[in-house]
């Protein structure tokens, strides 16, 4: 549930237009612009990874899938459910290869289920590597367990064979899955992140979402007087929702390069002013939270928000769907970007975090890697992506795939926010996948900071210490990214 759509630092106006079209549903014209400037860098000759279970390749069967080769698909069954696989993608695959059997495995303990299988070489063909027990993709790649997806992104799109798959995706999608410079991860879901609230409640009370942290604090006072907890997140299992907010604010102050520097373990990056200022500002907001929220899990806090006991909640665009069965008629999801902190912020208030998330991987030692690539290509077709959005309530990285679907209030709100943000996009953080130890420490220290046990300075110092330790740890392979 992390990661995000990579955005090149300098976004052109055209790219910006494209992004608007893409993350959302407009699409038609944007798609045609795409072919003009392929993100490329994908010189497929550089990585001719042989596929297993192969038959002869052809235009219709670019990976050479053997028609009767069985395919094993492991799906993380979390907020997105797994019906998108059982009811959409797997039937589509079977339609293409009626003789092939598809084995579907749904689990919430990805690591526990799969770690031993990787170690033994008996791996499934396709994996949704998600959830709180996901496997360390960096470690998998280091051990040569992941298939380079360049050939997937360079294959012809199912919808329009004249186009490569990569050109049908939101820009940055391929980049967000780079490890050591090559795309090993398919981040499939397009998510927008911000502060979510009940639009109806805010309208009724006459509250407006804050544009600056000063306004934020004033609003919190007002909300508190109304007997509602102004802001909360779930400390027990979802403190990462909060550290996203801290990182977004820091990135708004200093510019998106900060996130890249954090991923690259730049010396002293956690002690930069932007991080300190952001941490201090959020710690102030933390004072409006009841201590008890540290002991609650995300669905508990979210259900409280549905009952109008919590006003603002940090999360991503999957939230509305996750809470579907608990949302009363009086509740209508809306989202606002994180407030600005200083007048000299590099990014405007409208800047929003937009990211491709939900990593899917193909093990390099699978028995039917060709089938897995084809399965991924099906996911990246419009039909596959549209079915996914219908079943999971989340948008995909496939441009225009949600065309014709009616938008729920929350999706419409995030869509509007992304339109308003334009090129001002805060991107993903790769350290979440690359360095789980750093990520675990950040969760821990975020709770300490937000619940008032440490100061912003201490927060920065502790994070820097851990970052230094990870950097010095010879057993952890270091990754690097420039975009």
């Amino acid at each position, binding site marked *: 549930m992390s990661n995000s759509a990579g955005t090149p630092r300098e976004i052109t106006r055209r790219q910006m237009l494209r992004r608007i079209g893409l993350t959302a549903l407009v699409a038609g014209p944007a798609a045609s612009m795409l072919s003009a400037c392929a993100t490329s860098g994908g010189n497929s000759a550089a990585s001719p990874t042989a596929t297993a279970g192969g038959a002869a390749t052809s235009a219709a069967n670019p990976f050479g899938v053997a028609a009767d080769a069985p395919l094993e698909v492991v799906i993380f*069954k979390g907020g997105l459910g797994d019906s998108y696989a059982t009811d959409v993608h797997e039937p589509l695959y079977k339609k293409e290869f009626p003789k092939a059997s598809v084995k579907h*495995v749904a689990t919430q303990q990805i690591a526990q*289920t799969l770690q031993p299988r990787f170690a033994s070489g008996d791996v499934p063909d396709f994996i949704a590597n998600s959830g709180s027990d996901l496997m360390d993709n960096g470690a998998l790649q280091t051990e040569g367990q992941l298939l380079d997806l360049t050939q997937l992104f360079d294959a012809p799109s199912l919808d329009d064979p004249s186009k490569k798959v990569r050109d049908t995706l939101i820009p940055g999608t391929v980049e967000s899955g780079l490890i050591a410079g090559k795309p090993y991860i398919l981040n499939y879901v397009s998510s927008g992140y911000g502060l979510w609230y009940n639009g109806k409640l805010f309208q009724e009370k006459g509250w407006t979402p804050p544009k600056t942290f000063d306004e934020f604090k004033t609003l919190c006072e007002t909300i508190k007087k109304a007997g509602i907890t102004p802001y909360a997140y779930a400390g027990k299992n979802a403190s990462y929702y909060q550290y996203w907010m801290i990182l977004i604010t820091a990135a708004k102050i200093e510019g998106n390069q900060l996130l890249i520097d954090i991923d690259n373990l730049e010396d002293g990056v956690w002690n930069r002013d932007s991080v300190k200022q952001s941490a201090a500002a959020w710690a102030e907001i933390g004072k409006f939270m009841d201590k008890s929220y540290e002991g609650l899990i995300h669905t508990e806090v979210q259900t409280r928000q549905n009952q109008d006991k919590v006003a603002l909640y940090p999360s991503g665009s999957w939230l509305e769907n996750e809470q579907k069965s608990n949302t009363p008629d009086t509740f209508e999801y809306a989202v606002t970007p994180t407030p600005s902190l200083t007048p000299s912020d590099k990014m405007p208030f409208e800047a929003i975090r937009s990211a491709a998330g939900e990593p899917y991987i193909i093990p390099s030692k699978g028995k039917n890697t060709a089938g897995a690539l084809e399965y991924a290509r099906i996911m990246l077709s419009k039909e596959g992506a549209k079915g996914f959005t219908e079943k999971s309530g989340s948008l995909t990285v496939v441009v225009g795939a949600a065309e014709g679907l009616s938008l729920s209030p929350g999706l419409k709100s995030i869509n509007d926010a992304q339109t308003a943000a334009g090129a001002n996009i805060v991107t993903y953080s790769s350290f979440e996948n690359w360095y789980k130890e750093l990520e675990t420490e950040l969760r821990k220290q975020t709770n300490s900071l937000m619940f008032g046990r440490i100061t912003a300075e201490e927060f920065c110092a502790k994070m820097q210490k851990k970052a230094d330790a990870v950097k010095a740890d010879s057993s952890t392979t270091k990754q690097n990214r420039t975009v």
Partner: protein
Amino acid sequence: MMATQTDAVRVAKASHAASRRRQKNPTGVFGALSHIALIVWTILVVGPILWTFLASFKTNPEIVGDAPLALPDNFSWASWGRAWEKAHIGRYMLNTVFVVGVSTLFTMLFGSMAAYVLARYRFFGNRAIYYLFVSGLSFPVFLALVPLFFVVRNLGLIDTHIGVILVYIAYSLPFTVFFLTAFFKTLPNSVAEAAMMDGASHTRTFFQIMVPMARPGLISITIFNILGQWNQYLLPIVLLSGSVEDKWLITQGIANINTTAGYEADWPGLFAALSMAIIPMLIVYIIFQRQIQSGLTAGAVK
């Protein structure tokens, strides 16, 4: 069992000797206080279990709401249906009964065989083997998880109940051997020696004389093993992967529905599943509580 019998004899004797003498009645402040303490603990024990049952009938807002102790507005069985269907509690329960039943049986058979030999025969390597078994008591299971997976997989037993059963037996042996060895040592020699004199084989002596004599200890350790294996949480996660969901055991089912409830916010369903896991255990326990308690104590006190 033996203990209860001798107790009975002793009581009979005592009451003969002491006729019907009655001492000062222990009511008063102490009696009242002790009853209060006992009742408070009863509430502490029963309360949470009862609350689980009630919560399974509540709605989400009622559970997450401000009155955790209130009764549900109306009793709906919908959550039970959901839990039964989605969590497959019934199947997991049957799986667990099968696995734990078979593995406990063989744990006791193999464990008592090994313990008997180690306790009553002198041979080269006896102590070494004994300590090898006993050292297993202090190994943390985690340490073995990943290598264990390979061992089981190389035998082709991963994702099978046989694999789980064999592993359960192996991991129950240290405890079983440790206590049964001690137990066999306390049994008198004379009966076994007499049998051997009469020409009974070692094997016959064991099964026909020693096992019946050791019954209290065997029952007690059987109960320990059933409880321990029933509650096992880590081993099944590793040995029965997500690809064989129909073979899962009850603890996996519970852990799974706990996570699912987290993602789908279906708390009543979670508590219904919990109730389904609790009720059969309580019923079995209440039916057999006399045997379980006397069995436990007979072995443990020795």
